[in-house]
């Protein structure tokens, strides 16, 4: 027995060790990854973000170098907090918070401590950085704007948040990512591909040699350049015209659906959201809840379309065959439709048929042909649904599918909508209940881009391409079927002739005679839309929105646009003038009607916008 002790001990030890080693080395595979985390350092090479050009090849957005201070928490040794904080222009408390955040993100991976130093700050810091173990400077590129406009189209770039990092494994703390606009929509094309080099490193954090002869290294790929459909000059001019006003302008090229301008007012200088000043400025913009500069009115604001909608009402009535072109209606300053209900109209020559009806924007005429359209069918439900189908074919009542992230569906009511509203079948409802739709003042709601698109469809006599903002990526034109497939409306081509003539006559003898553009055949339609706001729980009516849609030239149209100016009163007053100038600018490349331009530039609506917040009683439509 005594002799056996050594044998027992040795067998026990060998057995124990082999099991433990088998567990550590063979069964447990997690150590491999841990080992790589410890001894392999990834060095990232951030490529330049793609440039953004306008449709004519003018550079809108380039890049400038920026320097981020990063830290790997595990490697941070004790340091002089006060000194580093003052170098980084942070408060010591802020520096501490950033380091704690970094710990939570990962002790081993680099986290951003303070972003985007300027070149000068970088040069100063670079010499002192060696004193702070665990900290290093990462070069990145920041946006450099060549334009003070288009902020809402372009969007901006910002560091990814923790949520985005956990959602998309590509991103790491400190990475920049497009937010809003084209930067967000085309993030993957613009950002390119980050390159990475793996180095074996030692305990002192020195790189020893490439890991596995660089087997896992990748080269960075420069981001693709984007060419937008935007005409930078027109865009800048539109933004200039909209100064002191609120609203949106969308200008399209009818033949292609390319967005020539997408203006929202008020806007901001895109340079405000570059670099370290971004977060402060963003907060300012974000909390401006009265002007809402971050809100893209051209895409997100829903308005009653007002009179421009009459053109569509006319088209549907023609398609449904409920009215002849020559058939004339008398207008007695309005249209009465049973039990004292009456839709007013303004003063204009009477009687009117289709062409003159549009030119004079006669409410009575369109109310009656709308009523006939709905009443053509056995029930108002059926009638409304047919009407809706026609309207939807113009891209109304649903998201248009353009290549920007934000938008609204707008509203095209259907039979379900009215059934619910009138509690059908307990109560019946009839065409007359929906009559305001005829003149774009009922339940119908549209965004500026929807209205511009419908105008382009009229200009094209029955078809359109979905509006889009990118023309080509890295030199090759977009191939997305969404934007290269023709969308055809439900209205036959022949019915567009009289409508277009009517819209042309708007300038000849109708509601916008003083807005003619010399030498160009413009077609358009004024609009005025009643609207309300709620301030401190009180609903109040405000001055009407000024609306205008137009396209030009009449034959082979090059531009179709919709302009909304909030509380601009009647259509030709603000929106019409702006449309006219935009068309002149785009087609002639210069403005000859200096008076008209001067009027727009010198008149603002700031007083109008201040009214509901003044706390005093005010009058509207003055």
């Amino acid at each position, binding site marked *: 027995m005594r002799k056996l002790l050594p044998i027992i001990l040795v067998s026990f030890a060998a057995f124990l060790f*082999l099991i433990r080693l088998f567990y550590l080395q063979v069964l447990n595979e997690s150590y491999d990854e841990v080992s790589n985390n410890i001894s392999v350092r990834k060095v990232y090479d951030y490529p330049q973000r793609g440039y953004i050009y306008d449709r004519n090849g003018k550079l809108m957005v380039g890049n400038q170098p920026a320097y981020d201070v990063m830290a790997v928490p595990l490697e941070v040794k004790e340091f002089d907090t006060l000194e580093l904080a003052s170098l980084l222009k942070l408060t010591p408390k802020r520096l501490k918070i950033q380091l704690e955040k970094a710990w939570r993100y990962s002790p081993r991976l680099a986290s951003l401590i303070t972003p985007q130093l300027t070149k000068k700050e970088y040069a100063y810091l670079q010499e002192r950085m060696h004193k702070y173990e665990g900290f290093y400077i990462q070069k990145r590129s920041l946006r450099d704007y060549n334009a003070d406009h288009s902020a809402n189209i372009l969007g901006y770039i910002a560091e990814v948040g923790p949520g985005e990092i956990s959602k998309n494994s590509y991103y790491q703390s400190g990475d920049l990512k497009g937010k809003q606009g084209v930067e967000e929509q085309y993030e993957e094309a613009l950002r390119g591909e980050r390159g990475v080099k793996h180095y074996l490193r030692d305990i002192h954090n020195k790189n020893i040699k490439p890991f596995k002869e660089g087997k896992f290294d990748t080269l960075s790929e420069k981001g693709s350049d984007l060419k937008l459909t935007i005409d930078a000059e027109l865009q800048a001019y539109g933004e200039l015209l909209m100064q002191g006003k609120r609203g949106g302008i969308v200008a399209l090229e009818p033949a292609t659906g390319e967005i020539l301008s997408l203006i929202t007012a008020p806007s901001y200088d895109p340079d405000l959201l570059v670099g370290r000043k971004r977060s402060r400025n963003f907060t300012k913009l974000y909390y401006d809840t009265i002007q809402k500069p971050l809100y893209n009115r051209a895409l997100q604001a829903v308005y009653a379309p007002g009179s421009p909608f009459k053109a569509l009402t006319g088209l549907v009535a023609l398609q449904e065959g409920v009215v002849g072109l020559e058939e004339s209606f008398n207008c007695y300053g309005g249209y009465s439709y049973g039990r004292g209900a009456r839709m007013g109209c303004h003063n204009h020559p009477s009687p009117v048929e289709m062409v003159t009806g549009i030119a004079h924007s006669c409410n009575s005429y369109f109310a009656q042909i709308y009523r006939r359209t709905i009443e053509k069918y056995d029930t108002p439900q059926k009638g409304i649904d047919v009407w809706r189908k026609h309207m939807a074919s113009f891209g109304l009542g649903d998201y248009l599918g353009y290549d920007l992230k934000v938008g609204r569906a707008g509203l095209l009511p259907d039979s379900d909508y009215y059934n619910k509203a009138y509690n059908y079948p307990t109560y019946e409802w009839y065409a007359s209940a929906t009559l305001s739709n005829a003149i774009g003042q009922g339940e119908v709601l549209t965004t500026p881009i929807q209205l511009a698109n419908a105008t382009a469809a009229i200009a094209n006599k029955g078809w359109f391409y979905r509006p889009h903002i990118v023309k080509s990526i890295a030199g090759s034109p977009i191939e997305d079927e969404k934007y290269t497939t023709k969308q055809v409306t439900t209205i036959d081509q022949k019915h567009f002739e009289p409508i277009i003539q009517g819209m042309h006559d708007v300038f000849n003898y109708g509601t916008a005679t003083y807005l003619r553009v010399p030498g160009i055949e413009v077609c358009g339609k004024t609009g005025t839309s009643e609207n309300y706001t709620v301030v401190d729980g009180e609903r109040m009516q405000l001055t009407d929105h000024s609306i205008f849609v137009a396209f030009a030239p009449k034959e082979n149209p090059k531009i179709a646009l919709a302009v909304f100016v909030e509380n601009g009163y009647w259509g030709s007053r603000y929106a019409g003038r702006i449309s006219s100038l935009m068309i002149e600018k785009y087609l002639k490349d210069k403005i000859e009607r200096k008076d008209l331009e001067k009027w727009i530039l010198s008149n603002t609506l700031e007083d109008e916008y201040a009214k509901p917040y003044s706390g005093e009683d005010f009058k509207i439509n003055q």
Partner: protein
Amino acid sequence: MPKTLLQIDWLTILIISILIGFGWVNIYSTTFVSEEEIIFDLSRIYGKQLFWIILGIVISIVILALESKFFERFASVIYIFAILSLIGLFIFGKTIAGQTAWYSFGAFSIQPAEFVKTAVALALAKYISEMDNDLSKFTSQLKAFAIIGLPLALIMLQPDAGSAVIYLSFVIPLYREGLPHFYITYGLLAVAIFILTLKFGFSIFAPVFVALFIIIYLFNRKKKPKLWRYILVLIFGLGFSYSVNFILNSVLLPHQKERFNVLIGETNDIRGAAFNLYQSEVAIGSGGWTGKGWLKGSQTQGRFVPEQHTDYIFSTVGEEWGFFGTSLVIILFSILILRLYHLAERQKSQFSRVYGYSVLAVIFVHFFVNIAMVIGLFPTVGIPLPFFSYGGSGLWGFLILVLIFLKLDAKRKSLN
């Protein structure tokens, strides 16, 4: 001498040579700087080790050339000389990392504790093999313990708790020669109580311990056990368990206490106390079946494991040679110890047998404690892996220890 070469146990020599060679290969990996280097470069760790190895061979030849009777005859003198060398440390010694354990000669240092083991083994063998000493007698036990205890106490004073642990290994030869069972039984019991109390706390351990004792007592009732003995062991056991916290907090130094906490998973600070073990486990664990290849271990090449060329050399084997490499080392050591055991058992002279047992015991405890520490089964104790770790004193100490025994074994027929 030529005769000795024929009679010597070449299997032992072979295994030792493989261990030394493989050890050097791993030391090279932990300390080489660039790929165009001269192997024999005394400014580098691996170059020095090569120098120690060559001198070690010379020392081995000298040992083999000595008269076999010399060791038994001069055992006492060697022992006294060894004790003096330990005492001398307090006067002439050099303090490195808080331990006064080295004599310094310019660039080289010698650690006498590495040689004292041999002296103790010789002295113990000599004492036990004397006619009138019987280890079942208390006085003999006491004297034997004194032989071990004196150098042990001196080493503890350096202080070098790690090397002190090694002296427990002499219980193995003593047991073989008749030391009563209960030293082993109660020793193991104490270790078990210590670990279990540490892990589960006194309040959980105590009731379980009491219950276990009652069950054992009832189970053995027919053999009419002495109740007082059970009660005595129970009281001492509980008392020891109760004082674990006290030992931990008052007897052990803070860093020693931390090492226990790391082992039982109480402390997980991988940047502080648990850093060595964590890095070592990561290095070994990432080796897989076949390892990352010589000079290709990313943990080793990044020098992430502290003391990797000395106490943690086994982690290099794990990372660069994988499970195949580590099992080879385990198996080589097992064969070596079992071979020494076989040689010891075939000795006719009691002196040779006790000495042989001491040799295998010392190597076993080094092997066990070192590897258990490196793979996270034992608290951090700074003792080297025999023949493998970097260090001249250690290498020479082990060579002398084993070679004396091989000489005794070669001449076993003439010794009795």
